């Protein structure tokens, strides 16, 4: 389904109409219905997401109530991961594009684009045709992301990043802003500290979001799917406290590299550990 909705239309999202300069007309593709706009949570964050960001989304989303729709900006990194995770969990998702409705940007995410459409998701844009994204279209897009949502979740954001702009915008519209804490050593945490000192609320689980949307706390779908037999694996326990490189592990545990290599492979294979840019993380 594709089409356009103007601001005078009764199908025009109410939340969006409230913002100071709402788009006069929005174009859409996919499942346009009033329910999808009921409980929107915007998820924003860096394009260069760390493994930590992936895990944040995984954990927070895993308990979200099924009636919450995930709104994001279809960029690589946090945006794409949010859309993907939402589809996987059966949550509705809305991708707000910075370009014309017929244009897929970034191109390499065409598969995700299709996936959103085939899973009752929605693609939105205030630009028509195959208008290419410009540097000024991104902030305009952000205003829609913030405008549609009752709350914004900031996953990872460096200082002065676009995600912060969206969060500030949402705050000025009177929307709630949630933020997850991050490591003080990561520059993807700097922005989060900034806004949580000003207005954002720190959360560490999706239940707080459910509660805000009025779906009660606890009790929901969350299953502890932690794998067994991790029992007394000393490597795993160490990584749980702090992600480390192979060298750091070797020094910390005084185990030689050769032994460590194979042990870590076994952990990787059983999915208890992941690796990114040379650092190992416990899942």
């Amino acid at each position, binding site marked *: 389904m594709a089409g356009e909705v103007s601001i005078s239309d009764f199908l025009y999202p109410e939340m969006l109409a409230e913002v100071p300069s709402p788009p006069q007309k929005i174009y859409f593709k996919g499942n346009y219905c009033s329910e999808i706009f009921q409980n929107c949570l915007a998820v924003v964050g860096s*394009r*260069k997401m760390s493994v930590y960001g992936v895990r944040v989304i995984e954990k927070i989303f895993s308990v979200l109530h099924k009636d919450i729709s995930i709104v994001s900006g279809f*960029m*690589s*990194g946090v945006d794409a991961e949010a859309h993907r995770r939402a589809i996987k969990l059966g949550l509705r998702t809305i991708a707000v594009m910075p370009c014309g409705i017929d244009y897929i940007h*970034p191109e*390499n995410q065409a598969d995700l684009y299709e996936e959103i459409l085939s899973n009752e998701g929605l693609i939105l844009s205030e630009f028509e045709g195959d208008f290419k994204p410009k540097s000024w279209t991104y902030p305009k897009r952000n205003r829609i992301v913030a405008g549609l949502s009752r709350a914004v979740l900031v996953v990872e954001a*460096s200082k002065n990043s676009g995600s912060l702009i969206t969060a500030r915008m949402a705050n000025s519209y009177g929307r709630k802003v949630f933020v997850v804490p991050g490591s003080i*050593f*990561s*520059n993807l945490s700097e922005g989060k500290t900034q806004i949580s000192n000003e207005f954002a609320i720190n959360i560490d689980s999706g239940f707080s979001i459910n509660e805000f949307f009025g779906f009660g706390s606890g009790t929901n779908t969350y299953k502890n799917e932690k794998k067994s037999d991790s029992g007394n694996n000393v490597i795993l326990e160490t990584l749980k406290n702090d992600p480390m*490189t*192979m*060298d750091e592990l*070797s020094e910390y545990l005084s185990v*030689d*590299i*050769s032994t460590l*290599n*194979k*042990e*870590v*492979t*076994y952990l*990787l*294979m059983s999915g208890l550990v*992941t*690796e*990114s*840019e*040379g*650092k190992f993380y416990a899942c």
Partner: protein
Amino acid sequence: MLVKVKSIANRGIQTLGVDVEINVSSGGLPGLEIVGLPDKSVAESRDRVRTAFQNCGLKLPGRKIMINLAPADINKEGSFYDLPIAAGLISASLNISLPDDALFFGELSFDGSLRHTKGSFLLSLYAKENGYSRVFVPSSCAKEAASVNGIFVYAVENLSSLAEHLGGRRIISPVSSGSFTEESQNFSYKNLSRDEDLDIGEIIGQEYVKRALEICAAGGHNLIMVGPPGSGKTMLAKALVSILPDLSEEESIEVTKIYSLVGKIPPNCGLLRKRPFRNPHHTISYAGMIGGGSNPLPGEITLAHRGVLFMDEFSEFTRPVLESLRQPLESGKITVSRSRCSVDFPSKFMLIASSNPCPCGHYGDPKKECTCSENKIRNYQAKLSGPILDRIDLHVNVLPVDKNRLFSSNRSVEINSKYILDRVLKAHEIQSKRFEGEGIFFNCDMSNSQIEKYCNLKSDSKKLLLQAVEKFSLSTRAYFKIMKVARTIADINGENDVEADHIAEAVQYRSKIFLQ
């Protein structure tokens, strides 16, 4: 009067016999002419020989002299025809007969002395294969020529001494070929543009990469290191040389042949013992890398034969250069085809590549923020990925060492190059026993059928490997590469069978997410 002198011509790495025919006519105006497709350096031989004769007080016959280099349809290149021409002229003018089983080779200087000439090792090899028992070469090349057993090498000092020798007045005694082990022990490697060997123990931390280097050295595997600037990639690669054993005699002959062809063997040196380490700059041309020219000469990959080809800033090399590595990485040789001929050069090298993860270099760096756009990073890594990467056995991330550790005192002293070299040597020994008669030296050279034969996985190892292939979406080639690396790890540990643990360690060096 007609005299025939034997010499050679080099086409690529192949050596052909050439007859230098000298005819002194009974009449005609005095003069000297060379025919038989000589290039400029051969044609100028005329003037060098004439002047050298004059300066040595030797007389040229005052008649028309014609010189033919037969067969006449092959291009003759190089300055080494001076000596055969001069020997022929001595024979013709003094009426002395030349030995039938001798090859002549060398460049003349105006004063009649002989200069160091490239290719004397190829000459001796040709002599041996074709039943010539004597070679006459410049004295600085004698050692190189004498590295081939069973050839009498005559070290010619200058034209007069040659004339005296041929006339039987003062005999030059042949240089005997030394045995391989005592040969060129005191060879100066500085001339081969090698830095002083860096001991691997001098590098602080990076144990993970050091282990990868050990595996590479033990099994001849290829390695790529990705990491931010200043993490020690280049230093690690350079240290690899210090844990590589010397060339075996068989290998040494292959390598010496190549270096002799391009004239990279310094005067008074014989067989090369150390493995070559080539470090081409990333602006290198396509021909510079794989070899080229109308009479093709070897490129960097051939010069790195049986040694290390270190490509720093791998992703900065041009795409044709990177793609040209595919064939040699797989087959261990490169075919350089030109309109006039096509030549095969051996190029069985160990590829050590290093690269930054993105144009600014800091993607994934825990300390510094990367300033590159998503697109830039993707394009940069796209250059790394794909077919070439699939052919590299081990992939490692190199992260900068914590500054505090640079000054810490608890550095491991026992892990130095000598310690690792010992283990590498043991692994080599096991491999050479295993591959006796197979025509290969190292695990990395195993064909798929040889992998089946020698890796013989038990069911649990096989299961683990299949799981890994599934989990990290690896290619079939990667599947076999992991088996080869696991075989090497087992060899380092001195174990007969490839166990699941060995596979697990091998997988560790193949599971990098950044490159997928």
